[in-house]
């Protein structure tokens, strides 16, 4: 592994794409999110990490309008996301994948990606029945684009396989292809490396970096510290629903509060423990 912390690229200093201010969400007695503020800038890979139960997925769900926050705002390209319905989020240009894969499992890989293009296409019932030229052209375009995207994530050879029969790694990549099909400005990945073996993770990392380089901003929730620290341009660490640390990976990694949250009190003082920080979290449960 690379010992050198990843240096942020110039693009990470782009203008803000998403600005979250003071987001709070409570479930009964549990304050899942408490006054969380951050911004994601155009062209970066933004990492969101934290111990289990820190509120990462809650934050994700607030951003994608599955939950309504008690307070705070989340502006995405000037649009307030918290007031939208879940299906309107993707229209604004924010696509997501799921921690526990949610593919359309009885459909083929190709169909999954074609469904991803639903909101960028428009033929309706009448067009479907009479199959006029506009509809036929749109269908052909949709299919061609779906194949292109499958190729892009590297699973074009399974285009006509049923999603549920794909290998775990391929399912993860299919989910990314499906999200990319919505033509997002921001692609939010919820633990894409969960359950992947090291070689699959390497391929995934290359894919995510390629997506960023091709102009899509990426938000990455991840448990794999190595992946996050090596790849992300900036990182937000959550704990107990609060922002613990926020900034460049190198700074976050050496923030005593982060080390304490992950390794316990006193660890910050123990120089021997520092190198492990990057990998220790792998053993933790995948669910939060």
């Amino acid at each position, binding site marked *: 592994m690379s010992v050198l912390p990843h240096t942020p690229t110039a693009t990470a200093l782009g203008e803000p794409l998403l600005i979250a201010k003071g987001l709070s969400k409570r479930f009964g007695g549990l304050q899942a999110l408490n006054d969380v503020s951050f911004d994601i800038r155009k062209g970066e890979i933004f990492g969101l990490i934290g111990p289990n139960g820190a509120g990462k997925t809650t934050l994700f769900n607030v951003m*994608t309008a*599955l939950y309504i926050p008690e307070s705070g705002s989340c502006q995405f390209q000037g649009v307030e996301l918290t007031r939208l*319905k*879940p*299906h*309107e*989020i*993707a*229209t604004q240009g924010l*696509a*997501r994948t*799921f921690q526990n894969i*949610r*593919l*359309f*499992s*009885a*459909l*083929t890989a*190709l*169909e999954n990606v*074609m*469904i*991803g293009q*639903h*909101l960028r*296409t*428009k*033929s*309706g*019932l009448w*067009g*479907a*029945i009479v*199959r006029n030229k506009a*509809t036929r052209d*749109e*269908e*052909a375009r*949709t*299919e061609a684009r779906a194949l292109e995207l499958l190729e892009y994530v590297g699973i*074009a050879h399974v*285009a*006509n396989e*049923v999603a*549920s*029969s794909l290998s775990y790694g391929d399912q993860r990549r299919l989910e990314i292809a*499906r*999200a990319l*099909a*919505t033509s997002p400005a921001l692609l939010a990945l919820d633990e894409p490396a969960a359950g992947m073996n090291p070689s699959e993770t390497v391929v995934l990392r290359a894919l995510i970096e390629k997506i960023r380089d091709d102009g899509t901003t990426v938000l990455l929730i991840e448990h794999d510290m190595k992946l996050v620290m090596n790849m992300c341009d900036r990182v937000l660490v959550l704990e107990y629903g609060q922002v613990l640390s926020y900034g460049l990976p190198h700074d976050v990694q050496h923030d005593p509060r982060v080390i304490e949250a992950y390794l316990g009190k006193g660890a910050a003082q123990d120089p021997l423990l520092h190198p492990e920080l990057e990998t220790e979290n792998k053993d933790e449960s995948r669910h939060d």
Partner: protein
Amino acid sequence: MSHTLSNVKNRTPVKVWLGAFAIGAVLLMLPFLLGATAGQGWIRILNFALLYVMLALGLNIVVGFAGLLDLGYIAFYAVGAYAWALLASPHFDLHLPFWIVLPIGVALAAMAGVALGFPVLKLRGDYLAIVTLGFGEIIRIFMNNLDAPVNITNGPQGINRIDTFKVGEWALGRPETILGFRITGPEKYYYLLMALVILIIFICIRLQNSRVGRAWEAVREDEIAAKAMGINTRSIKLMAFGMGASFGGVAGCLFASMQGFVSPESFGLSESIAILCMVVLGGMGHVPGVVAGALLLSIFPEILRNIVVPVQQTLFGDVIVDPDAIRMLLFGVALVAVMIFRPEGLWPSAVRKRELNSGKEKQA
């Protein structure tokens, strides 16, 4: 590389054309063959089977494509039937032509479908089944009780002497002789029904391979993921309810015109369940499977009825067991057997078969 839709469409081999031609010829001759060999009664049975095909295909849009379990589907059949009965019978002394009544019946049924869709948008599975079941019963009870204070539906007595399907002065219900060739009412209806069934099959297949059809399947597979992909699940579900219901409306109109009589008891829960059985038995979401399921479940019991009685008479010299009772028994046995041995249905789509098989392999 692959077996994609456009590839299949581009090449239509001669064999397919010949096959289609042969099937077409058989379908064209069927009522005469049947009338000559088995009697006119069988043409009526065939006509009802075609009505059930329409109903099963309509329900298949809701249950098979969009994955919304609907136990009150017969309500839309009732709406269509009563629309025809009220607008073309001596009951209100209205005798509107088919090109007014049929669109009204279809539109009313589709509206009823959307009206049912609204309150159940957020329900799934069991809850959805119970609400739709209730809806089906509400419609039937309405038909049963709307004879007072103002007599609209004539209550449990139903409405009779309903107009037959008429194009100008040419009535489908009357037998007549064309070019020295005698053609009966049921035979004429057969051609109308067959044409509509083919149209509906065509629409179903087109819909399935479309943007809307894929969105339905997305909602069926995973609603949350569908929303995350920007699919407005609300309008997509309403579209499924409306589209499915409109087929029920067509079937209802034809039922009323063919039968000449409608009463609330034709639209009970058992009918809803029978149609659902056709969809499930044939292969949910697979159009040929659903057609086969509907034909099988509507014709097979009639064949059975014609066998059970003579067999008992020769064996025991008398009819001991009522054929209807045996019918229901065998019906149940057939369903249980299908669920055990072919859970994907008798004729499932290739994709669904693969999915279930891959699931089995993984478990093993």
